[in-house]
C-alpha cells in the first residue's frame, strides 16, 4: 500500500511537471507580448530591459523553460503585479477557502445524491422515479451562477436573511482559527454558496447511483439475499448499495475536476475569496504570475483529490488490488 502511494505521488509530480510545462507554453507561446506574463506593465522601458537582461527573457525559449522549472522547484512562483507580493503568499489563504467550500458542498451533494439514487432505483416505474430523474437532470442543467444569483435575489436581497457575498462581514475579527471557520458569521456566509454548489453537484451522483443500482438489481447475490429472507432495506443499502456505490465513486473522482472548474463561477458570484475567483480577477487584471500559479494549484488539487478518491475506492472494493 505504501509503495502504491509513493508511486502515485511520483506520478503526480511528473504530472505536475507536465501541467507546468503546458502552462508555460500557454502563457508564452500564445499571441500577445511574450514577456507580459513576467513584466509588470508599470515598469519603465529601462527597467523592463534591465529585467529582461537579468532574467534572460530574451533568451531562447528552452533556456527560459529551464529557468521556469528551476524557480518552480525552489518555490518561486513569481510576483504578483497587482498585489506586489509573491504569488504564493497571495494565494495561500485562498486555497483553504476554496477547499472548504468545495468539500462541504461535495459531501452534502454526494450524501443526498447517493441516498436519493438508491431510493429512486428501488421505486422503479413510479411517479417518484420520474420526478427524481427530472429533478436530477434539471439540477444539472441550471448553471451554477444562475442559481446562485436566484438564491441571492431571494435570500439576500428580498428576504434579507443571508449575506449576499464575501466570506465574512467586513470588520469582523475572529478570535481563534476555530472561530474563523466555525463562527455563525462564517457559516451564514458559507450557506448560500454551499447550497448553490451542492444543488448542482447533486445531480450526477443521483443519476449515476440510480443507474448502477439498476444494474446491481439483476445480480445473483441480490436474488440470494432475498432468498435468505433479509429485509428489503438491508438488501437495498448493504448489498445493492455498497456495490452500486463503487462506480459512483469512480465517476465522482472524475467529476471532481469538473466541479473545481465550475466552482470558479460560484466563487465569483458570491465574492468568495478562493482560488477560482482569484483566477478570474487576476486574468482580468492581467496579473499573469498569479493567474499562472492559481492555475497550477488547481491542477494540483485535482490530482490530489483523484489520488484520495482512488485510495477510498480500493478500501471499498476488496477485489481491487492496488498495483
Amino acid at each position, binding site marked *: 500500500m505504501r509503495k502504491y502511494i509513493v508511486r502515485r505521488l511520483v506520478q503526480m509530480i511528473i504530472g505536475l511537471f507536465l501541467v507546468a510545462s503546458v502552462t508555460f507554453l500557454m502563457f508564452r507561446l500564445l499571441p500577445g507580448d511574450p514577456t507580459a506574463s513576467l513584466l509588470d506593465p508599470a515598469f519603465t522601458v529601462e527597467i523592463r530591459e534591465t529585467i529582461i537582461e537579468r532574467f534572460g527573457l530574451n533568451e531562447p525559449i528552452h533556456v527560459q523553460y529551464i529557468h521556469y522549472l528551476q524557480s518552480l522547484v525552489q518555490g518561486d512562483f513569481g510576483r504578483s503585479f497587482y498585489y506586489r507580493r509573491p504569488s504564493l503568499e497571495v494565494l495561500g489563504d485562498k486555497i483553504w477557502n476554496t477547499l472548504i467550500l468545495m468539500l462541504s458542498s461535495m459531501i452534502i451533494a454526494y450524501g443526498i445524491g447517493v441516498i436519493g439514487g438508491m431510493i429512486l432505483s428501488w421505486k422503479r416505474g413510479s411517479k417518484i422515479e420520474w420526478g427524481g430523474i427530472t429533478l436530477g437532470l434539471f439540477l444539472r442543467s441550471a448553471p451554477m451562477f444562475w442559481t446562485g444569483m436566484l438564491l441571492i435575489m431571494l435570500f439576500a436581497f428580498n428576504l434579507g436573511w443571508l449575506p449576499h457575498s464575501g466570506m465574512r462581514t467586513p470588520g469582523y475579527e475572529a478570535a481563534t482559527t476555530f472561530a474563523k471557520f466555525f463562527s455563525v458569521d462564517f457559516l451564514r456566509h458559507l450557506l448560500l454558496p454551499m447550497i448553490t454548489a451542492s444543488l448542482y453537484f447533486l445531480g450526477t451522483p443521483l443519476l449515476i447511483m440510480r443507474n448502477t443500482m439498476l444494474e446491481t438489481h439483476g445480480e445473483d447475490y441480490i436474488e440470494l439475499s432475498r432468498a435468505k429472507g433479509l429485509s428489503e432495506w438491508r438488501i437495498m443499502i448493504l448489498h445493492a448499495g455498497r456495490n452500486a456505490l463503487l462506480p459512483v465513486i469512480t465517476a465522482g473522482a472524475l467529476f471532481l*475536476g469538473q466541479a473545481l472548474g465550475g466552482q470558479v463561477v460560484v466563487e465569483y458570484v458570491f465574492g468568495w475569496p478562493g482560488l477560482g475567483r482569484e483566477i478570474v480577477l487576476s486574468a482580468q487584471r492581467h496579473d499573469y504570475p498569479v493567474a499562472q500559479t492559481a492555475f497550477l494549484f*488547481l491542477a494540483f488539487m485535482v490530482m490530489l483529490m483523484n489520488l484520495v478518491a482512488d485510495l477510498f475506492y480500493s478500501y471499498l472494493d476488496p477485489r481491487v488490488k492496488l498495483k
Partner: protein
Amino acid sequence: MAVTTMPQTKSKSGFRRSLLEPFLDFVRRDRLALIGILIIVSFTLIAVFAPFLAPHDPRDMLRREDGTLARLDPPSLRHPFGTTNLGRDVFSQVLIGTRAALLVGFLAAFFVTLIGTNIGIIAGYYGGWVDSLLMRLVDILYAIPLIPFVIIMMALVEPSIWNVIWGISLLTWRTVARIIRSQVLSVSQRPYVKAARMAGCSDFRIMYYHIAPNILPLALLEMAFAVGWAITAEASVSFVGFGDPTVISWGQILHMVFLTGAIRTAWWWVIPPGLAIALLLIGVFFTARSLEEVVNPRLRRR
C-alpha cells in the same frame, strides 16, 4: 455463428439498423426523450429564425413613449422580458442568444467527438506504446479544469467565439477518448475483427469499417453529453466576462446583470437567460439519457 456476425461486418446497413431502429423505438415509448427532442428542435428553430422573431434589435437602446430611455423596465407587452439598464429588450437578446448557444454547443461537441473518438480508436486498436502515450496525455488533460483553462486562454488570446469553441474542444475530448478507447478494446477482441485481421485487411480499414460502426452509438451518446458541457462552459466563460463581446450569448446577458448590480431588482433580466440555458440543457440531457438506455441495455425497462 457466421450467420449472426455477418450484419455487423456489412457496416453501412448494419449500423443504421443497429442504431436508428432501437433509437426510434425508444423515442416512441420514452416520453422524456420525446420532450427532449421537441425542446432541441424548438430551440433550433428559434435560432434559425431569431432575427425575424425578435421584436427589436437586441442592441438598440429603446425609448419609452415619453422619450426617456427605457431603463430597467419590468415585463410588459412591448417588452415581454423587460429591459436592461441601457434600455435594451431582454426578450430579443434571449432569442438572439440562442444562436451562440447552439453554435458553440454543436460545433464544440462535434469537434470533441471527432478528436476524442479518433484518438480512442487509435489508442484502443494499436495498444502498446501508442496507447500508453495517448492515455498519459489524456491523464494530464484530466488534471486541467475546463473553465479556468478556457478563461485563461481567453485572457491571453482574442476572446472570439471561435476561440471559445477551440478552447473548449481542446480539453473536453479527453473524456470521449477514454470512454471510446475502452469500448474499442472490447470490440477488438470480437471474432470478426480478428477474422478481418487474418484476412489481411489494412489497419485503417479495420478501424474505420469494422470497429467504428460498433462504437458509433457510444460516440453519439458522448457527443450529446458534450453539447451539455460546451453550452455550460461557454455560458460560464461569458458570465465572468471573457466571452466574445461582439456576440450576444445568454452567459453574456447574465454577465451584464451581475456587473451592473441590477440583480437587486431586475428579476426579469436574470431569470429568462438562465432559464433558457437550463431548458436547452434539459432537452439535451433527456435525449442523451434515452440514448444511454439504447447503448446500455441493462438500463432498459423490463
